[in-house]
């Protein structure tokens, strides 16, 4: 009855095409999920105390949270959004420093953009510039969105990410552990996967270009 004029394709061929389409779409979503759920490189040589050589200001009265950020990584938008929620929840109990890693060989103000403005507007957080990535190397941060939590004595108590997947907002193991550490002093684990653009690889390529 319907579509009588367009019966040139047989029903069987149409159903086969639809089945193929479904498999292709499922594969596409599978690849997207894989990309979004694959964490970046974790720190390999993390010091258990705040590095003495660091120029980043640590709060001796409260726990200090560091988040290392690639200034132009779109996936890190979710990390900054989650940091904003975290700071709202732990208001007054935590000091945050969002460290923007500027690679060598880029123009001044390269890091100034939407992420910087967002990070700087979070109550209790400060945006900090890391020229050439020296601080990122010092703290062994390799992936944008890497969070390090230090207690008021400067001991590292947590290392990980605070998004559930790459560029995806929502509750995560990392956030829950940080909240638990701040509110109760303990958590089931002291780490979580980090999702975002690579920081360390960028430093290597910048150095290669310099040589």
């Amino acid at each position: 009855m319907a579509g009588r004029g367009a019966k040139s394709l047989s029903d069987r061929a149409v159903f086969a095409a639809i089945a193929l389409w479904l498999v292709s779409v499922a594969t596409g979503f599978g690849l997207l999920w894989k990309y979004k759920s694959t964490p970046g490189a974790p720190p390999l040589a993390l010091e258990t105390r705040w590095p003495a050589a660091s120029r980043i200001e640590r709060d001796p009265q409260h726990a200090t949270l560091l988040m290392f950020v690639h200034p132009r990584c779109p996936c890190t938008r979710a990390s900054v959004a989650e940091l904003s929620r975290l700071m709202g929840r732990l208001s007054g109990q935590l000091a945050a420093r969002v460290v923007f890693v500027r690679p060598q060989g880029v123009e001044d103000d390269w890091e100034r953009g939407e992420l910087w403005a967002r990070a700087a507007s979070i109550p209790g957080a400060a945006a900090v510039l890391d020229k050439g990535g020296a601080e990122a190397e010092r703290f062994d941060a390799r992936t944008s969105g890497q969070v390090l939590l230090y207690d008021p004595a400067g001991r590292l108590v947590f290392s990980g990410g605070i998004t559930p997947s790459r560029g995806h907002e929502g509750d995560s193991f990392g956030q829950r552990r940080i909240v638990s550490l701040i509110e109760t002093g303990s958590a089931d684990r002291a780490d979580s996967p980090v999702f975002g653009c690579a920081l360390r690889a960028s430093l290597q390529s910048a150095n290669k270009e310099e040589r």
Partner: protein
Amino acid sequence: MSATAWSAQDAVAAIVRRAEERFEAHRLQVWKSTDRMFAWLMLGQWVFAIVIALTFSPYGWEGKQRTVHMHVWSALLLGGLISAAPVSLALLRPGWVVTRHVIAASQMLWSALLIHLTGGRIETHFHVFGSLGFLAAYRDWPLLLTATVAVAADHLVRGLVWPESVYGIVNPEWWRFLEHAFWVVFSVSILARLCRMSLKDMRTAAERGAELEALSEGEWRRSSVLERPETAAS
């Protein structure tokens, strides 16, 4: 007498038949025009997704080196793929039942892709409920079931392998799936009722139209009979 009764019964049967024809023609017209609307919507969503990806996540970065972000490829290729089947069917087989069901499933797939592209923003989840409302334009309630099954399958699979991407928390309670399902079923149940009411209205309109046709045909016949002698006389 019996001949009169027979002809009256015949006339009623003819009106019922005609009403059914009018109803089916109207329904087919609704299906075809809604197929066309969704074909445009699918293309519009594709363009929208590409614009979203290019605006908010154009590049993936490694230091100062950049590459085209996965979101751009997803919007371009996966988005194109999602739209390909419904648009093709809407053009080649408008009004076909399979076309509508593929469109219903595709619309839900679009919700899933847009949620990914916007980084899981809670606001993008409204696309699911907006889409259910659009699908009600077909006035064919089983389509809402197809859409619901597509949403449920997406939630089930992701809820098992990646719960935080669906529920926003990492270890949801076992009944969390039911909470999400409840709001979809809530929406679908009312929309399905509206579809049935709309169909009833269409059927009533078709019956009245058929009766009016029969009446005007009867009038025309009577006037033809009355006018015939005058015509003959002139």
